[in-house]
């Protein structure tokens, strides 16, 4: 649990605050989960769907941007290994979008709080200091990840009891594949129509 939350906090730090080298995108962290022993098919399916959902979004200015690299990793890691049902895939994708959006709001609160107390949290001797900024940011992300992981893990534990139902017995792969098809179609349509503007 602590390993996943520590990595999730690092993912949030890298994707939002430092380096920004696309090292923690879902296509990369999905392979990390596969190395960890997770079933590759559902993990890569969810990663592909997540990437395509947010492909058209771009972080811009002070607007809230869904933190989907973080959302993908923390939800998929908490979901556990194994084949997923239609219900599981649905819940995972909805949770990823919810957590991503929630994290963007958390970031806004965190930035405002850090700015209010910048002398203690971001500065050293009244000048921006990288060690203070990175340490306190990472700590806040770690605590946030811990809380989110606990909630999501509880949700998936209770979901396992529902998997004996009808929805729980259907092959869930159909959902992310069809979602990817629809999202790709929408993306190409959007790009071609923007070209004509």
């Amino acid at each position: 649990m602590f390993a996943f939350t520590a990595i999730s906090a690092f993912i949030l730090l890298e994707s939002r605050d430092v380096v920004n080298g696309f090292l923690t995108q879902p296509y990369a962290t999905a392979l990390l989960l596969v190395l960890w022993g997770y079933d590759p098919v559902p993990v890569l399916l969810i990663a592909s769907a997540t990437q395509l959902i947010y492909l058209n979004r771009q972080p811009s200015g002070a607007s809230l941007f869904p933190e989907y690299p973080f959302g993908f990793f923390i939800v998929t890691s908490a979901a556990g290994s194994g084949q997923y049902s239609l219900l599981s895939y649905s819940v995972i994708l909805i949770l990823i979008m919810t957590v991503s959006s929630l994290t963007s709001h958390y970031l806004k609160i965190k930035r405002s709080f850090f700015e209010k107390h910048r002398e203690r949290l971001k500065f050293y001797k009244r000048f921006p200091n990288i060690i203070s900024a990175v340490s306190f940011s990472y700590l806040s992300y770690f605590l946030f990840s811990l809380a989110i992981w606990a909630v999501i893990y509880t949700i998936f534990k209770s979901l396992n009891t529902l998997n004996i139902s009808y929805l729980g017995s259907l092959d869930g792969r159909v959902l992310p594949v069809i979602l990817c098809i629809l999202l790709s179609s929408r993306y190409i349509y959007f790009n071609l129509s923007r070209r004509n503007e």
Partner: protein
Amino acid sequence: MNKLSRRTILSLTLRTYFIRIFYNYNNLFGEGLCYCVFPFFKSCGVPKRDDILAKHLVTFNTNEYLSGFAVGIILKNSESNDADLEKTKNILSSVLGSIGDRLIYRLIFPVLTLTTVNKFVISGFKPDLCTWIIIIILMILFNLFNFYIRYAGISKGYEKGLDALKFFRSSGYKRTVFLLTAARNILTVILLVELIIYLKASNILLFFFDRGLKL
């Protein structure tokens, strides 16, 4: 002095990787800019942090990937009066933001993402050695580009000032944008076709309806 030493450029470049951690809603990248430019003033023998803060801790916006250009150009104009420096920062805020968003988030990032997702589909969502190699190579290539554009931005920005931005109107740049746009669109169409083939080949729909009918 029209050129910075390599050591200073390298120090400034590494600092631009952390420019975003200081982002806030008061001055946006103002604090990050102060952090980034510090090595320049240290090398000039002016380690007065209060002076740097007084001059640069104002509202400033940029794209993190093109922050090298911003830093280089601002350092070039650092000796000018406050009004001219303010004007330069305003130009940089609008120009670099839009160029960076278009180049990175609408072109380079989608091409990277679509390439990897295509490879996932081709491999049937079971990563083979080829998938690993492709992803690692793409990440290395992007981060080499990430480093280069920051380093070159600082170097050229300091040499030429605002004229360094003319690069984004050059025919070479326009050709690159065209190629990336074409690659993005082609990869999306290929992905669509591959997904449909995967859906048919893996009999997911058949299995899905079969279970549904049995009930």
